[in-house]
């Protein structure tokens, strides 16, 4: 909204006279043209209709007389009048005698003429008596939106309608880095853009936070809805100037259609939200339309969520243990504890599936505490100095008190701290480096060993290795299996091993399954190995046999003499 002071000396003076006419023509729609002396030069037909003028006003009529003939609320009439003064505000929102809103904007023209441009603001409040505007943006709020959507679904049975849901990518970061005032300004300005970009018959709402919705009247045509979504993402995603500072955000959008995707407001909103979720998951800055697969995927997810909660309550989890071996002398060093979940109907579920879900629903900290407790108790039954390695998720550093969980597990089991090894991934170090490193430091002070897991896969950097005195680096299996090219894999194993040696950290190669792979990693200087070749992950009951197999008295099949030179 412009409240710019008009500066008379900035008015153009020597422009071609027909520019006014071409300007008005270009700005087709409701408009008034005022001559330099304040008399009416032109009233477009649309303006006459909007102002409810009975008949064509005679030429030369003054603006006050014209306004007398228009059906305007008294306050609106005064505001309108003020707009004709070049030093006053250049924009106003008015309501007519019936309460319909419209905006008027003043535009200066050559030869001291003025144009007043009228713009109806059809927000369809009539359909929706409950619509309360959201105070920040002036759009309908969630309640009002739901009521309006319900009403429209009831009387749009034939043409159908579209529902778009939009949200700002990483809005929290804007709020956190620039402050909530800028965040609020951004939301308000974005909402104004949204309103402007829509037709009067569409309805925009702010559902909550940075989530917006649009009911698109009269169409459920997918290309048309997608076109609109893309147009909105374009306009709302252009830079904003907020308190003099350029701010740019990206948006994602989800689309649902009535009646195809749902006939009632709640179903439709849920499905648009699902589509939005899918768009964000696909990498943000995208737009996705609802598909039935999204529904079944989300149902599967919800069922899985319930099952996971039940599994945790009933302790349907188990730990399996995989040996880690020093290949230079075929000595068993310890076991990595691996979480297993056997779903009653689906059978074993991969941790790659259920761990992220557990993280999402806030179950990871309690599950993690249970894993620590169980693994430490189990390790107490193994002969000294065998250790147990336990994976911790990035979220355990944030959501749970990892220090307390470790302390409790050690105290309850009686396991000496040095026989526990905590494995962290690089991504855990990325999400919140300070707290994570501080926690790891405290654990290490207590004697717990720290291993860097899956090294080489994420955003590996030397500085990350230098940022903490890790006891061990676990080389990701993809470099061992040759999945990234055998020669490249070997070169990386060699580089990491060399790095570990110079930093005083042990290195272990994961996923060693064949003798060739064993020879390769050993040739590259790696002493420790974990993989099927030396044993699959096995339940606790079977570990006695594994331990016995590695006992010094037994001969180890896969340990050629040449290896024991290092």
């Amino acid at each position, binding site marked *: 909204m*412009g409240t*710019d002071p008009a500066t008379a000396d900035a008015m153009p003076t020597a422009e071609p006279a027909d*520019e006014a006419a071409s300007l008005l023509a*270009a700005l087709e729609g409701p408009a008034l043209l005022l001559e330099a002396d304040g008399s009416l030069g032109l009233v477009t037909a649309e303006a006459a209709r909007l102002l409810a003028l009975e008949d064509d006003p005679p030429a030369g009529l003054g603006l006050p007389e014209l306004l007398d003939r228009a059906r305007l609320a008294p306050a609106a009439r005064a505001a309108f009048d003020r707009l004709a003064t070049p030093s006053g505000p250049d924009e106003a929102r008015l309501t007519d005698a019936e309460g319909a809103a419209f905006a008027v904007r003043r535009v200066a023209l050559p030869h001291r003429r003025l144009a007043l441009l009228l713009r109806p603001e059809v927000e369809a409040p009539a359909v929706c008596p409950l619509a309360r505007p959201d105070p920040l943006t002036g759009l309908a709020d969630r309640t009002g939106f739901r009521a309006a959507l319900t009403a429209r679904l009831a009387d749009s049975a034939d043409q159908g309608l579209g529902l778009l849901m939009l949200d700002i990518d990483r809005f929290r970061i804007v709020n956190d880095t620039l402050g909530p005032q800028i965040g609020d300004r951004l939301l308000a300005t974005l909402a104004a853009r949204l309103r402007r*970009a829509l037709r009067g018959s569409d309805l925009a709402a702010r559902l909550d936070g940075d989530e917006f919705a649009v009911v698109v009247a009269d169409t459920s045509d997918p290309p048309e809805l997608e076109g609109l979504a893309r147009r909105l993402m374009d306009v709302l995603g252009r830079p904003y100037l907020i308190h003099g500072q350029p701010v740019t955000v990206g948006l994602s959008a989800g689309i649902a259609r009535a009646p195809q995707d749902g006939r009632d407001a709640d179903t439709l909103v849920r499905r648009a939200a699902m589509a939005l979720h899918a768009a964000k998951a696909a990498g943000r800055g995208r737009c996705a339309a609802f598909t039935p697969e999204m529904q079944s995927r989300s149902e599967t997810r919800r069922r899985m969520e319930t099952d996971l909660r039940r599994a945790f309550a009933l302790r349907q989890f188990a730990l399996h243990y995989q040996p880690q071996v020093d290949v230079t002398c075929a000595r068993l060093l310890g076991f990595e504890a691996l979480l297993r979940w056997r779903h009653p109907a689906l059978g074993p579920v991969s941790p790659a599936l259920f761990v992220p879900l557990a993280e999402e629903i806030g179950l990871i900290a309690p599950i993690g505490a249970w894993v620590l407790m169980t693994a430490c108790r189990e390790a107490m039954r193994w002969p000294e100095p065998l250790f147990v390695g336990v994976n911790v998720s990035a979220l355990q550093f944030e959501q749970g008190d990892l220090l307390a969980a470790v302390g409790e597990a050690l105290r309850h089991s009686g396991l000496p701290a040095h026989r526990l090894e905590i494995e962290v991934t690089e991504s855990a170090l990325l999400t919140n480096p300070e707290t994570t490193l501080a926690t790891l430091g405290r654990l290490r002070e207590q004697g717990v060993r720290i291993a860097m897991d899956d090294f080489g896969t994420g955003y590996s950097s030397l500085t990350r290795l230098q940022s903490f005195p890790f006891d061990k680096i676990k080389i990701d299996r993809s470099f061992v299996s040759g999945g990234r090219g055998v020669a490249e894999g070997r070169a990386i194993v060699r580089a990491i091993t060399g790095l570990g040696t110079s930093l005083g950290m042990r290195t272990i190669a994961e996923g060693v399954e064949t003798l060739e792979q064993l020879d390769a990693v050993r040739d590259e200087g790696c002493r420790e190995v974990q993989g099927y070749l030396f044993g699959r992950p096995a339940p606790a009951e079977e570990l006695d046999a594994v331990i016995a197999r590695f006992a010094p008295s037994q001969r180890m099949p896969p340990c050629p003499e040449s290896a024991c030179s290092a």
Partner: protein
Amino acid sequence: MPGIGLFRLIYASRSRIGGEAAALASILAEARANTAVAGITGVLLHSPDGFAQVLEGSLAAVGATFERIQNDPRHGEVAVLEAGPADARLFAGRTMAAVDGTAASDLARPVAADPAALLALLHRLLAASSPAGGR
């Protein structure tokens, strides 16, 4: 950020009118008429590929005008090249002069332009197009 001082914003954008003369004429007319009222000076450079514009005036005026322009579907891919307080008007007396940049080859992609080069170019083109320009 002070609201009273002089503020300057430079942006570049890609045209969505494909160099159509009538559409361009109305953009130029709107730009000139509106900015005069707001006490904004500056220059609007256009080519079939895109636009580049300098807006200078009070922060409130520049902000309101820029926001209005941002809503315009006749261009897109807007990139702000510069935004901040300014000491003096670079285009004093220009109520949004229009400059045809079609001949300037370095403007084929104004979105990628760097602000200093763009400003220099705007001044050069302005001087060439109307020797009487300036205060």
